[in-house]
């Protein structure tokens, strides 16, 4: 079925009414750098994800021996051996503070995601996932989807300081949002556009008619907020436009089952289970083009993860647990750090499980995984552990470990944006400002 044919069908169905429905922007016509599906001839879009875990790492268990392609996976990364060639591991890259007070667990995380360290929660938005979404996410039902898997309503994805993109904390709510009302099975036979959806969409355009006048009547800061509102309205219109189109078929896609009711809290076992379910749902959402950007908060940066029956959380332990003299590190903290990497593998499993084109969904994703600090005990933002996974549809190279030697961590953010097709030459401010990408990562 080609686009002209669809339009004809639409007109026919609506009895010749003045429809004026914009066709959805299909990747077929947009994206010339992806690879083609074997069967349909459509190009495969690239997707972006970020995956955050809190409270850093135990360096001796996480930093690989050797750099370049010749490195040994350390114990905490050992479970990721199946993905060795699809991982780029970055150690020793710093968030540089330039004298900005380090707000524990916040400055590092936001500094990495914006290139600008801030002394408080006033993030210098947008975060890089939003910048990337604006480039690759147009024309999908959701501009991005955020989840938090440890029961905490927190998000590190911001278009503006006053409006984080909120995280779903329940797999069931996530399921309903993606696969509930408004979802179209891409492989369903037959398609009838819903006339109520059409009416709904035209009502939204009426809402925006006073835009200019309204913008003039408020102060400069409020105008920016209004602009954000209108951007969100456009996203909603876009969702409706997509519902008026027969969805493009997706190979190997089946609608997932609704997730079971789970205990949603910060107990590690529960979190692992919640995370696995959410990862699976996000992978399906990416597969059938509901979104191209996902942001996962496995544990908050001030990690509230805990073991059943324990009086202390992961974060509290980082400050209170004595170093085990035999091991040379905090043993219980180490346990949480190890578990976090197991969860990271679960996330990659969910993407790699889905066949797409000649490979898997993971091959067409770029996932940036990072923490908020290196050594949580000291809140150190030097050497924040960071990884890039996936193939980005052939746009990146992986399978290496790079020691940053105190380079600004914004080099990673810059390179990731370039890999996602953004025309950006320099990113970050002051000594985080960099024009040096990481050539090893770019294909």
């Amino acid at each position, binding site marked *: 079925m080609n686009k002209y044919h669809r339009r004809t069908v639409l007109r026919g169905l609506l009895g010749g009414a003045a429809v004026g429905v914009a066709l959805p922007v299909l990747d077929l016509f947009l994206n010339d750098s992806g690879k083609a599906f074997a069967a349909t001839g459509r190009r495969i879009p690239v997707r972006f994800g970020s995956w955050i875990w809190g409270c850093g790492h135990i360096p001796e268990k996480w930093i690989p021996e050797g750099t370049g392609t010749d490195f040994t996976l350390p114990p905490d990364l050992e479970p990721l051996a199946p993905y060795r060639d699809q991982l780029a591991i970055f150690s020793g890259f710093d968030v540089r*503070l330039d004298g900005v*007070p*380090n707000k*524990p667990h916040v400055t590092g995380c936001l500094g990495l995601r914006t290139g600008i360290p801030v002394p408080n929660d006033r993030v210098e938005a947008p975060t890089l996932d939003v910048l990337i979404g604006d480039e690759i996410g147009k024309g999908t039902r*959701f*501009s991005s989807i*955020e989840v938090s898997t440890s*029961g905490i*309503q927190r998000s590190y994805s911001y*278009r*503006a300081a*006053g*409006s984080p*993109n*909120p995280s779903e904390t329940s797999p069931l*709510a996530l399921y309903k949002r993606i696969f509930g009302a408004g979802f179209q099975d891409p492989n369903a036979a037959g398609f009838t556009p819903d*006339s*109520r959806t*059409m*009416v*709904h969409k*035209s*009502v*939204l355009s*009426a*809402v925006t008619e006073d835009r200019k*006048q*309204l913008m*003039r*009547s*408020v*102060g*400069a800061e*409020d105008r920016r*907020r*209004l602009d*954000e*509102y209108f951007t*969100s*309205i456009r*996203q*909603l219109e876009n*969702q409706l436009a997509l519902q008026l189109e027969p969805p493009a078929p997706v190979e190997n896609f089946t609608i997932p089952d609704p997730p079971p009711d789970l205990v949603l809290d*910060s*107990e590690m076992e529960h979190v692992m289970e919640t995370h696995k379910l959410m990862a699976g749902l996000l992978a399906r959402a990416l597969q059938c083009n509901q979104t191209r950007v996902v942001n996962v908060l496995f544990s908050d940066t001030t990690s*509230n993860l*805990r073991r*059943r*029956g324990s*009086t*202390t*959380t992961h974060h509290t332990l980082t*400050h*209170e*647990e*004595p*170093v085990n003299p035999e091991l040379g590190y905090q043993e219980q903290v180490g346990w949480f750090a190890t578990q976090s990497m197991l969860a990271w593998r679960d996330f990659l499993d969910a993407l790699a499980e889905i066949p797409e084109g000649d490979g898997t969904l993971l091959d067409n994703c770029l996932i940036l995984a990072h923490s908020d600090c290196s050594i949580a*005990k*000291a*809140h150190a933002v030097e050497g924040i552990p960071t990884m890039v996974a996936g193939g980005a549809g052939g746009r990146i190279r992986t399978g290496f470990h790079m020691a940053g030697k105190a380079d600004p961590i914004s080099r990673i953010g810059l390179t990731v944006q370039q890999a996602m097709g953004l025309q950006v030459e320099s990113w970050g401010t002051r000594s985080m400002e960099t024009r040096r990408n990481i050539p090893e990562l770019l294909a």
Partner: protein
Amino acid sequence: MNKGLAALVVLVACQLLPGSDPVAANTPQAAAPAAGSPGAGSPAAGSPAAAQPVMRRLTEAQYRATVADIFDPGIPVVGRFERALRSDGLIAVGTSESGLSPFSVEQYDASARGIAAAVLSEAWRDQLLPCQPAVANRFDEDCATRIVEHFGRLLFRRPLSDSETGRFLDAARNTQQRLGDFYSGLEFALVGMMISPDFLLRIERVEPDPAKPGHYRLDAWSRATRLSYFITGSTPDDELLRAAGAGELDTEQGLAHQVERLMASPRFANAVRVFFDDMLQFELFDDLAKDPVIYPSYNSAVAEDAREQTLLTITDHLLTRNGDYRDLFTTRSAPLTRSLGVVYRMPVATRNGWAMSEFSERSGRAGIQSQVGFLALHSHPGRSSPTLRGKAIREVFLCQHVPDPPVDVDFTGINDDSNAARPTARDRLEAHRTQPACKACHTLMDPLGLTLERFDGVGGFRTRENGAIIDVSGSLDGREFEAAPGLGQALHDHPETPRCLVSKLYRSAVGRKTVAAEKPFIEQLNQIFADNGYRLPGLMQTIAVSEAFYAASPPSTDEGEETVAAAREAQGDPS
């Protein structure tokens, strides 16, 4: 400030950032209305400008109350609300900074569709619509216009302009053409209104003040809206909008009459509840989890009831009894449910709902700071936290901000609560009070929180920790005392306690920090509050009828002239 200096400040001084009245740095642009606009003279030379109008997003509580009031409490709100932005200690202030993400608009849209579908459904429409169409399958323009104008005025908190009415009428007409039904047409017109910025955002507008040339004030609709959400937590009702339209809010008498009327309505208590829910940071209950092995008595019913218990205590004391605000910290009043009875280890006669009870002397409790709603909220999942509790007392009740811990914290070996040599939190926190890097700030928090140590991580009473007797002595700004009742009395007597309430209440009402021009007014309010024996209703009334509450400067924009011109245009003033 360089890093070294920052560290030094924390180390030596750990200054409490003065709290009760954080004054916004009034921007220089704000001080002078847009230059070059004729007639836009600045206020009396040298005096600081009134604050600019704000654009506030409806909170979840306001949205729900508004929908219930305009339509019916039985109309469902199906969309979800994300965690509200808290700024300057209040969600109410966050509303003037918060943006609208794609998620929030998507959810507002879901709510709008659900509400509109319910309102126009057969079950509700006869009751809620101002008219019925002559024939449902033909477009009844008169009735449609009446419906659009009726709901438009209530939803936008002002009459619709002709073009707005026309636009929503078009939506109704076009929809009916397509779907063939009058009610579906109005349903989508209603969806349009409820997803409009004019509904979701309280956009305040200014007009030239006719009494004072060169000065501005909020227009009547903005004043009605500010007043209504302050006094009722909800949208202006029909009568308030009528009064605004008739110019009655411009007269002292007319305004006083409306304030009196609104304060007498049952919605007044709702406004007070919502304010304290915000002040006490109760939205944090949504994320609160306790370890089920350590605290088997805690569950979601306890969480819900704990939140309600404190709000009931507050409204009962401040409204029903018109009590002294400071007595909230010493009251032994204890509304209880069966679930709460388990945590408090008190018998509860009723199986369903609430029973009023009193905490005995032996309970060790007095004041809302000794209720589960405070104690559980400011604890860890598996244990209490004198530090978190002390910090919350400073920030919530005294409006003082305690700085973040230094980056380089190391409590190793101190806080391990299985450490036999340090069985109690006091022992474990000793290092905080002895290590210079920790001491400065922890002496502000721990001596307060330690007095609440007879309550565990969910607020259950205990006298021992790990077998050792718990010492509950402590101090607040030089005054020494013991246990929760001692802390309550100290808070009761602390000069910042009522000042903090005044500050938070006022900032909540205006949705922003106070500006320099308001300082004298705030001082006046502090005095009035003291003079009336710290009664909240009197304080709220004083604010609501004051001129200062509605003062405004035109918004500063880089197109300031246009804005002022727009205000003048809206006012019908061509000059």
